[in-house]
């Protein structure tokens, strides 16, 4: 038996998936969720085999929800229209269903799932793509213990590389995100944020002063007191943004 979760904020959209699934006795819907928060909880609780996931949903979208899960399940996206996402789907998703979709199209997606079940799962790869998200938002979603926190980019003071993760620093503290510094360098506004070091990106507005440090080195002092090193390649970038 294959255990299925449906996550969509519109009841009629969920009803349609349920109806299409009626003919497949081996697929069993264990739960329906109406937003990403419920979805996240249900995935962690029930560990479904397959998720039908809407992209546009209240508060956090489908991609943002998936980012918060360490071992995401197999996903078939259902979406009305999302040109950024479509590119990502083509490359890495099991399948995506463009609403409204026919029963034939739906069956094909299920067939694909059955064929691909044994293959290595590429969702993590997909989420790394800029196209999957980031390009059309200016915020990042993180998990703090059991809470979900939405951090607008403008609230970030600086970012620090931490192995495969990034530490985001805001006035509320430190948050861990499973993305690379390179990713943030591409999605953050380059007029506001500068990569001053291999391990650091700083928001320009937060800089209080720049001091010489040891031989030929520099150190940024933030308004809130923290010190951030500037590398040799970072210095010209910093100068360019500050305009001197």
């Amino acid at each position, binding site marked *: 038996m294959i255990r299925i979760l449906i996550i969509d*904020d*519109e*009841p*009629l*959209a969920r*009803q*349609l998936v349920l*109806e299409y699934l009626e003919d497949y006795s081996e697929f069993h819907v264990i739960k329906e969720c*109406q*937003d990403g*928060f419920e979805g996240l909880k249900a995935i962690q609780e029930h560990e479904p085999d397959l998720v039908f996931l809407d992209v*546009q*949903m*209240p*508060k956090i979208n489908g991609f943002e929800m998936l980012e918060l899960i360490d071992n995401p399940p197999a996903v078939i996206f259902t979406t*009305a*229209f999302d040109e950024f996402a479509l590119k990502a789907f083509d490359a890495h998703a099991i399948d995506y269903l*463009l*609403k*409204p*979709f026919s029963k034939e199209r739906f069956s094909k997606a299920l067939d694909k799932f059955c064929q691909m079940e044994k293959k290595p799962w590429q969702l993590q790869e997909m989420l790394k793509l800029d196209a999957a998200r980031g390009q*059309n*938002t*200016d*915020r990042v979603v993180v998990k703090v213990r059991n809470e979900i926190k*939405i*951090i*607008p*980019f*403008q*609230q970030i003071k600086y970012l620090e590389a931490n192995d495969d993760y990034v530490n985001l620093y805001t006035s509320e503290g430190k948050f861990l995100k499973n993305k690379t510094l390179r990713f943030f360098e591409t999605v953050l506004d380059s007029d506001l944020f500068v990569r001053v070091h291999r391990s650091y990106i700083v928001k320009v507005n937060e800089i209080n002063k720049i001091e010489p440090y040891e031989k030929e080195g520099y150190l940024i002092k933030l308004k809130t007191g923290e010190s951030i090193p500037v590398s040799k390649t970072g210095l010209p970038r910093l100068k360019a943004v500050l305009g001197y």
Partner: protein
Amino acid sequence: MISKLFKRQEQIIKAVGVVGLWILATAYVIHIYVRPFSFALLDSFIHTLFIIGGFVLLENVFRFYVPRSANLWLAFILPLFLTAIVLFLGSFGLQLLLDETEAYLEFIDQSYALRGLLILILFASWGILLWMDGQLEDQLKTRQREAMIQQMTKDAELSLLRQKLQPHFLFNSLNSISALVKNNPDQARQMVIQLSDFLRGTIQKDDRKWLKMEEEVAFLNLFLDIEMIRFGHRLQVIFNLDEEAVALRLPQLMIQPLLENALKHGLYGLTGEVIIKLDISKAGSFLEIRISNPFDPQAGKVKGAGFGLQAVKRRLYLLFGRNDLLICTAEKDVFTVTLKIPQTYDPDSNH
């Protein structure tokens, strides 16, 4: 100007008459100083011919190149140059035709300065006349063209701003219909009709034709009915139309984009129940529309949002030339837009 003359026969006759008279008159003046009359006539004829040639030349130059005020000196240099040529050609021609008639040649030598001055005045006047004519025509054409371009860009922009329909709305509505077809065919059919009527309301019409309030309200209700089918489980809309506002008019598709924006931010910015308020009233000489939705001040805004607001703002500017007709305020967790439509519409005129 000369080329224009050739377009109509009677004008050619008139022009030839004027030239003939001119030749006779100048010949008469010359003949006062030197005889015989036949020589004076020949003199006058030859010079007049060359002068007309000069006129044609000047006009052709000015047709392809109208000097701007910065290099207006060209308009004076050219006549000077032409005068020299005409003087030279004239005396050379006469010398060829009247060889041996020394008295006349002597007269030509003596009258160089006077002839020169006269011809120069003629050319200069002609030059100024042509220049002014060119300037006038130029200005007129530029002004017409500018007005045309302005109207065209305005129309194009207005229709573009109006027709920006949210694809999400359309495809999700179709998906809802697909879900209803089997279990609730009657409601499915009703929704198809509502969606069609709504779409019909978003196309057609130009911005100069204003809608009656009842038409607008019917249109907004279509939109809200469709959204209620999709989100009825968590959406509540409180719609209040003041009696005073019932008789007013407004351009099409002003309220709906704002309402759509409010629904989007309420429904996608928050979980749980969402209450949207829509108030339409009369405030002085304005129709006032107030739409409010709850939002989450903590969450970052989604990019691309706010296009609806910007489009309405731009349209208001294009229609009324004012930037203060759409006001957005955020208070705690409620976002409110206030739209004012000046009641300047006159149903009897086209504007």
